[in-house]
């Protein structure tokens, strides 16, 4: 398999649109060098802005590895289909938006709209993200419809807005208006969450690692089946090496007020 290492030749100080990199053909050096990218709203060739290094690796998937990016570098992993995208720095907005498969690793923080409208695949963010994780894109109706987003740091507001399917895991705090208008899917929030959690939620599941949460939309409604908990526990542990909750944790279930006629649910610690 191939690995391509990319490092900017200049300090990026303005918006850089990298969405065309998702169509990369790892076998064709020449075509990679001349992939068109938008910098300061002008079309440039990839080789004009980046130093490229090609390597052969003994792995099952090809890798595209970036260094030295910053918050201006947007649309990386846009409609990403397969292989691995690795970013060893911070990155801008729309990371993995409309992603269809493969994996994205960010060894830093990301800006807005991480995994917005993604369909499949996995995104790992080592540090923090801004608003609209897994949400709908501006003007879009539905949020992410599959895949997994794992954030080891914090997430800001509107996490999972309009989310339709998939899993979002936030290891630290999440901001206001999380899971608003959620249609389905699973969101796991390991620490604090801001105000207005789950407003307008239709279906879907929220796990909150807290002992109390006051929200008039939710009514107490039983517990969690150990089989469903076991499925999630095994998925996170075996696939991502994450202990999503203690195995013997007791969780209390709250559901959306039955007057609203929906089956959204919230689990908090007993």
């Amino acid at each position, binding site marked *: 398999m191939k690995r391509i290492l990319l490092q900017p030749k200049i300090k990026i100080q303005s918006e850089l649109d990298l969405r065309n990199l998702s169509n990369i053909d790892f076998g064709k050096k020449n075509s990679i060098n001349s992939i068109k990218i938008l910098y300061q709203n002008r079309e440039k060739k990839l080789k004009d802005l980046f130093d490229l290094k090609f390597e052969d690796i003994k792995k099952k998937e090809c890798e595209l590895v970036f260094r030295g990016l910053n918050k201006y570098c947007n649309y990386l992993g846009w409609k990403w289909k397969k292989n691995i995208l690795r970013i060893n720095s911070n990155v801008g907005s729309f990371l993995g938006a409309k992603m269809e498969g493969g994996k994205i690793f960010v060894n830093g923080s990301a800006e807005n709209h991480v995994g917005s409208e993604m369909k*499949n695949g996995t995104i790992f963010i080592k540090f923090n993200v801004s608003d609209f994780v897994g949400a709908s894109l501006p003007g879009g109706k539905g949020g992410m419809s*599959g895949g997994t987003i794992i954030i080891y740091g914090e997430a800001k507001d509107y996490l999972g807005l309009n989310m339709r*399917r*998939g*899993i979002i895991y936030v290891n630290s705090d999440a901001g206001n208006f999380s899971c608003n208008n959620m249609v*389905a899917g*699973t969101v796991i929030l390991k620490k604090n969450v801001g105000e207005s959690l789950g407003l307008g939620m239709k*279906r879907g*599941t929220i796990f909150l690692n807290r002992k109390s949460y006051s929200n008039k939309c939710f009514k107490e409604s*039983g*517990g969690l*089946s*150990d*089989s*469903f*908990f*076991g*499925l*999630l*526990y*095994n*998925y996170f542990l075996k*696939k991502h090496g994450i202990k999503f909750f203690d*195995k013997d944790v007791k969780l209390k279930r709250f559901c959306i007020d039955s007057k609203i006629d929906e*089956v959204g*649910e919230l689990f908090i610690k007993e």
Partner: protein
Amino acid sequence: MIKVEDTFAEAFSMKASRLIITAYNQSWAIKAAESFCGFATSVIACGCEAGIESNLTADQTPDGRPGVSVLVFSMSSKELAKQILNRTGQCIMTSPTSAVFSGNSGEEKIPLGNALRYFGDGFQISKMIDEKRYWRIPVMDGEFICEDFAYQMKGIGGGNFLILGEDIANVLKAAELAVNKINKLKSVILPFPGGIVRSGSKVGSKYKNLIASTNFEYCPTLKGMVKSKLDKKIACVLEIVIDGIKKEDVELAMKVGILEILRTKSLTGINRISAGNYGGKLGPYLFKLKSVIA
């Protein structure tokens, strides 16, 4: 000295599927599995043949609870799907704390939670985890978790061998020894009660509507009345029927079972090991006893 006859067992292709049943503890997983596998000894009248393949520890199941692996075999895809769905609905879903998952992958899907979800009457919840869909159906002890689909795979039914002896005590003892040994193998099941069948059948009957009838050649009480395969000394015959996923699985199970009988020195009153076949007309798999144990 037990004689192994120079004959063959005749087996045929079947459609198969593997299910993983889990529960709060091993005992309840076994109860659910046994209920599922009830009345599933022969495709002649049960619709399918099913049995417990193995017990599973918590780390071998998708939801981290103790469980049981079950194999189901049927003659057609349609019948297999029907049997799996009905039995899951009536025997697993009804069993306390149970959950059910597919134990194999494949191209052909068999609706499981996909059909059973309607029992939830609109309160069912679907969850996609690792590209698999699971259904959470509310029931009186909490939730019944059920994978969306089971999957069909190829299987082989009708691997067998016959134990011929002088009295029921010794033949039964020999059969039990073989069953205990075969039950330790994966990818095979013994669908009959305790793994042993006494009413071996032949294809057809003198009665028009009957597709199978007693295998008179091996019935001790018919000696002298029909062309019997039993000599004077033999007063009892028991059969072990084996269904498996691959030819090699069935072959290994036959070998292990027969060798256990041949090697147990304390066994007395066993004269011959034979096998049931239909002259090669029934199925494409012929297991020659001599080569199986070689």
